[in-house]
Each structure stands twice: as structure tokens, then as C-alpha cells.
């Protein structure tokens, strides 16, 4: 499946979804001018990926990294949708998915957002502070 890589801008984060390595990366700040056009390809890629691996019998070990500095309210909606999709992928019997949520140790709002994602979606997330 083709890799989805989006370079960061002043208002949108770095995205790298790599089916070959099984590493999905989201890093930076998110307040894109047009949130649907930015996020819908990401959502579509994850849906296609889930549908693809659902059909095969291989084991998939996946790692998801969120290292976000800031995201606006509409981006929060899409991040929740991404987390719900990741949960549905993790629920597949042939998938082992580890999600890491990095936050600056003094940034309690980003930490709390990680906890909300766990509560709201059921996705298992490891919260990792950094200095």
C-alpha cells in the first residue's frame, strides 16, 4: 500500500503513514485552513489500510507516534476520529498496535488530551513526557 507522507506547514502537522514499516507518525501543530481537505486523505488511508489487513492472515505489528505541540478544536475532532480508527485496527485479531503519545512534561493540556483519547475511544495509549 502506498505510503502517505505530508510535509508540515506553519499550520499543519507532519504525517507519515508507512504500511511497509508499520510506523504511523503525527508530529507538530495542527490548525489547517481547510481541515477537511487536510484530514480526509489521512482518514481514507487508514480505512483502506484496515480493510486491506483485515483480509490477510499475516501478523501486523504497528507503532503509532503522536508528538503534537498544539491542535485546534476542529483538529481535535479529526484526531478523535483517527484514534477510533486505530482502535478498530487494533481490534483485528492479527494486529498488535502500540500507540505512544508524547507531551512536553510541563504541558498538562496535551497530556490531558491524551487521557481523553484513551477514555473516549478505548485506544490503548502510552503517555510519554519529555523535556
Amino acid at each position, binding site marked *: 500500500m502506498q505510503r502517505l507522507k505530508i510535509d508540515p506547514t*506553519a*499550520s499543519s502537522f507532519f504525517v507519515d503513514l508507512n504500511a511497509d514499516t508499520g510506523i504511523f507518525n503525527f508530529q507538530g501543530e495542527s*490548525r489547517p*485552513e*481547510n*481541515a*477537511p481537505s487536510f484530514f480526509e486523505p489521512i482518514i481514507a488511508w487508514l480505512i483502506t489500510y484496515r480493510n486491506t489487513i483485515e483480509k490477510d492472515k499475516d501478523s501486523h505489528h504497528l507503532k503509532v507516534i503522536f508528538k503534537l505541540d*498544539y491542535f*485546534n*478544536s*476542529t483538529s*481535535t*475532532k479529526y484526531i*478523535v476520529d483517527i484514534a477510533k480508527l486505530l482502535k478498530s485496527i487494533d481490534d483485528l485479531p492479527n494486529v498488535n498496535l502500540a500507540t505512544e503519545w508524547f507531551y*512536553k512534561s*510541563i*504541558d*498538562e*493540556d496535551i497530556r490531558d488530551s491524551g487521557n*481523553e483519547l484513551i477514555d*473516549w475511544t478505548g485506544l490503548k495509549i502510552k503517555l510519554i513526557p519529555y523535556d
Partner: protein
Amino acid sequence: MVINNQYLSVFSDRYTQIYRESCIIKHEEITNILNDVKSSLDIDFVTKKRIYSIVNELLENTMLHSDHSESEVELVILKTDDCYRIITINTISVDERHNLLSYSTNINSLSIQELKNQYKEKLLNGEINDKGTIGVGMELIRLQSNNKILISTDDNSNVIIDVRLDKL
């Protein structure tokens, strides 16, 4: 743009103005102001981050409700010993003013727990609207500030949104 000194004069005795800027309501201009806020405010990380978030949600809100493409917005940040005030002033159509006042009245009428429930419900089950947003900006501002959002209008068709953020 008419700078609304009358509204700000109410605070002049007790508050110090720490930021003031006006711009055309465009995404690039909002980016410039956010960068400016980030680099110029000499305050603790958590408070600055919340001010940054409130400024962004307020300015994005003005984009949604502005009355024409070349509308201007003025942003003022005031400081006193116990709080900050983040204030935006921009012109708005009568219809949008009605929508904004109705929306904020709902937000202000809810308890914090009711607000959290509404915020969560919209994020989990809401749909992106025709403006490309989920429409929880005001909920987020009230949750982050833990204060009611003050909205007023003046004789020049300006709408003034005033958010109080208590110091940590």
C-alpha cells in the same frame, strides 16, 4: 476599522495592555499574530499556551462569522494581578450576530460538567459543518478559561468577545 477604545477604557485603571494588533481576517494573518503572541508574551508556558489556543479559536471564529472577505479584527490582551483578558473586536452581519449571541448564550448557560459532556458528544459523534469545522470553539474557550464568555455589540456593528483567563 473603528478601534473600540470605549470598551477597553473600562479596564484602563486596573489592567495593563500587553498585546494589541489588528489584521485582515485571513489564515495567513492569523498565523502571523499567533507567532507574534508566542514570541512576545513573557509569561509561563501553560498560561501562554492557553492564551495561544484562545486567541486562535477566537480569530478562527471571526473568520467564520465575518461579514465580508476583507473584514478586520482587532486583538487586545490585557493583564492584571490575577487574570488576563483576551478580547477580539470585529464587524459582523446582523444574522451572524444573532447566531453568535444565541450560540454563546447556550454555552454560558451550561455548567462545566454539562459543557464537558456537550464538547465530548460533538467530538465523538458530531459532523463537520458546511464551514469545515466541528463548531466547538466556544466550548473549548470556556473550558480552557473556566469563565463565561462575554459578548457585546456596539453602535458600529462591531461584536466584542471578551475572555477572562485567571492566572494559575
